[in-house]
């Protein structure tokens, strides 16, 4: 009897120590869910969701916020978030904006007065310029977040839709037979 008790007790102690060690040794620093959600979000940092950037929104989703507040990501992002979080894929919350074509900012350089306000507003440092010098947008870095448009005192920033190039073109069935491939021969 006593042997059994001692054995069970030792086993319990052993496993307890093992688990205790593992919880320290393999401690997860941050919530991995937040990282995964952040990966899915489009990283425009536009703040249309009401949070200051994509990561804060990812944290909010991890804490139970709705997943349909990201207009730049659109339905595709909502679907992915729904798959990840196990929530229902709702349609985009229109109060946060509507899904739009991808755009980039363009500064009409003649009209720019060099006030640097847009530079301060840009979340990804994609605007180049200095005080009283003309500014310009690095189109490759611009996420199209729209945040530079409002601060401009002379309204010289336009949001220009990104044109499709042959590199970014997706094959389209609806255009058939336009750009279609002839698939089969009658022999």
């Amino acid at each position, binding site marked *: 009897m006593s042997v059994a008790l001692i054995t069970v007790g030792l086993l319990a102690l052993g496993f307890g120590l093992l688990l205790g060690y593992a919880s320290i040794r393999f401690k997860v620093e941050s919530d991995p869910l937040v990282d995964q959600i952040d990966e899915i979000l489009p990283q425009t940092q536009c703040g249309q969701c009401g949070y200051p950037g*994509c990561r804060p929104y990812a944290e909010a989703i991890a804490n139970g916020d709705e997943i349909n507040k990201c207009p730049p990501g659109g339905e595709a992002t909502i679907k992915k978030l729904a798959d990840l979080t196990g929530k229902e894929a709702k349609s985009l919350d229109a109060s946060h904006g509507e899904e739009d074509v991808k755009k980039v900012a363009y500064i009409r350089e003649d009209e720019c007065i060099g006030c640097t306000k847009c530079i301060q507003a840009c979340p990804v440092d994609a605007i180049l310029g200095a005080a009283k010098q003309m500014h310009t947008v690095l189109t490759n870095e611009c996420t199209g977040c729209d945040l530079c448009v409002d601060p401009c005192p002379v309204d010289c920033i336009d949001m220009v839709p990104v044109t499709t190039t*042959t590199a970014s073109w997706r094959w389209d069935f609806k255009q058939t037979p336009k750009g279609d491939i002839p698939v*089969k*021969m009658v022999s």
Partner: protein
Amino acid sequence: MQLPQFEDIISRLDKGQTWSFSGGVHPAGNKHLSNQTCTVHPSLPEQLIVPVRQHIGTDGQILVKEGEQVKKGQPLTQSSQAFSVPIHAPTSGTIKAIGDHVTAHPSGLSETCIQITPDGHDTWVSLTPTPHYLEIEKSELVSQICNAGVAGMGGAGFPSHIKASGSKSVEFLIINGIECEPYITADDRLMREQAASILEGVDILTHLLSPRAVVIAIEDNKPDAIAVMKQACESRTDIHLVTVPTKYPAGGEKQLIQILTGREVPRDGLPIDVGITMFNVGTCFAVADAILRGKPLIERIVTVTGSAVERPGNYWARIGTPVNHLLSVAGYLPKQQKQPEVIMGGPMMGFTLNDAAVPVVKTTNCLLIPAHNELTHGSDERACIRCSACADACPVHLLPQQLFWHSKAKEYDKAQEYNLFDCIECGACAYVCPSEIPLVHYYRKAKSDIRVERDERNKADKAKARFEARKARLEREKLEREAKHQKAKEARLAAVDNKTTSSSKDKVAAALARAKAKKAQQAGNSDATANETSSAPQDNKKAAVAAAVARAKAKKAAQQAAQQHTDTPPASNKSTDGQNVPPVSDSAEDAQAEKKQRVAAAVARAKAKKAAQQAAQQHTDTPPASNESTDGQNVPPVSDSAEDAQAAKKQRIAAAVAKAKAKKAAQEKNK
């Protein structure tokens, strides 16, 4: 798996035996339509449209301007990038426009093109052939191939000079004359008509790569080409001419390697990884043209075929020839088609053109104009019945039906697990499909979607990194600012704690001294200024400030003096006219005044810097203001500070003071 060894391969090839690849199909060739007649040089089109980018890699820089005259063969672009070859003017003429034009891409989107109006003379630029290519450096030869704009003419358009400059040792140099796709006969005609030139190109590539063996492979449905090539190679023991049984897609690079050597190219690898380099016969011809005749790649053979043209055949089309010109040359029969349809490339891998104005590019080997009912389009797609005929036909061991399911359902990660990107889009699966599913279509769509998604993800990652870097920077700046404020606060508190009447008195005294100095200066009492400033606590700095101000004034006064032709020294001039003639008051308009101020400030800055440098060398103690008053214009004042940094600071202060004064003066004048 043990790779077949070199000796085994050679002995097998010499016996006429080959390996085979799994799958493949046997579509009707229909090559007789176009291979019966000689290659024709069509008339010059009214307009040539040369796309700047015609191959994998990057675009070059455009070298010509609109309205410029160009000669045939003149380079139009250049690039220092390795993965880029230039394009050349296909004929002599005028650059009509440089801009977007629809190009040979299934999307029908526009890309930058150079449009040339031919002048009809077709005058060549001066050519520099290299007939004795054995005597020059190999690297020089490779760069000549690059400068001639040679890109792979089999289909993908890989820049040839990169393959030709391989550093790895090459066992087999394979010359691809397979041309397995139905209808196309461009390589067939080229081999029949230009066998000698092709062999010259092979010799050049052999010289560059020094392979252990050269193999020319031709499919057995081209007996005439085989006969001609055999004759040309008769005296050549180093070249193995191999006849390959007809099977589609035997002309694919990896498939042909498998047929000839039994080796398989790794899925992420290149042929060079198994010791093989392959060139198309057309590329060999272009290389020979480039080296031996100095001609850049400006024309190629294009098969114009199908039942909806009157004279199907092969044409030497200049790069940039619009498709509709070739159609009119070949005699397009619109009545044979229900709706106009032109396929660029073959029936298995080509794509339907959106616009007949699309130009011929370096990779265009065929224009197929099928009559109604000549080809089907899989328009009545039915459900997949899981017959697995596609898997049997696939030459790269894929499971097309699985790829199809996942691509259709947009489960792209699963499609990639089934190695979607190993698909060579040969169309064999779609050809055998009893449900007429356009399988390749789904794969191409899935591939492009995955590519675009990957690009977007990369962009998002970059944006995230930039956002985080910015956040970190703002945080750091905030902390720095706070630290600065904290420091200032502490200093203030300390000052309050040690509050003694003397310190505040000092400040008052200093302020008074400054005010006095200013007044004295305005009065033109230069000695007094010097004295006052020297008595002030920050002797050097103030002296310099005063000096700069004085200089600015002196300058202005000198200008005035020059205008008035008075002999009075500038300083005294100022002193007499002091109050009613402020420095800027002479100028009539504010704008002018402002300009003058700026000029004066700049001059003052420049002088102060010079003076500081001089002072550093000479260590003179002359008071600056008096110096100015005696020597007026050409002796700059000297500050005592030795360091450049201090001097620069002083200059700025001096300029600012000068500006402020000028402004004040202007305001006074306005009163």
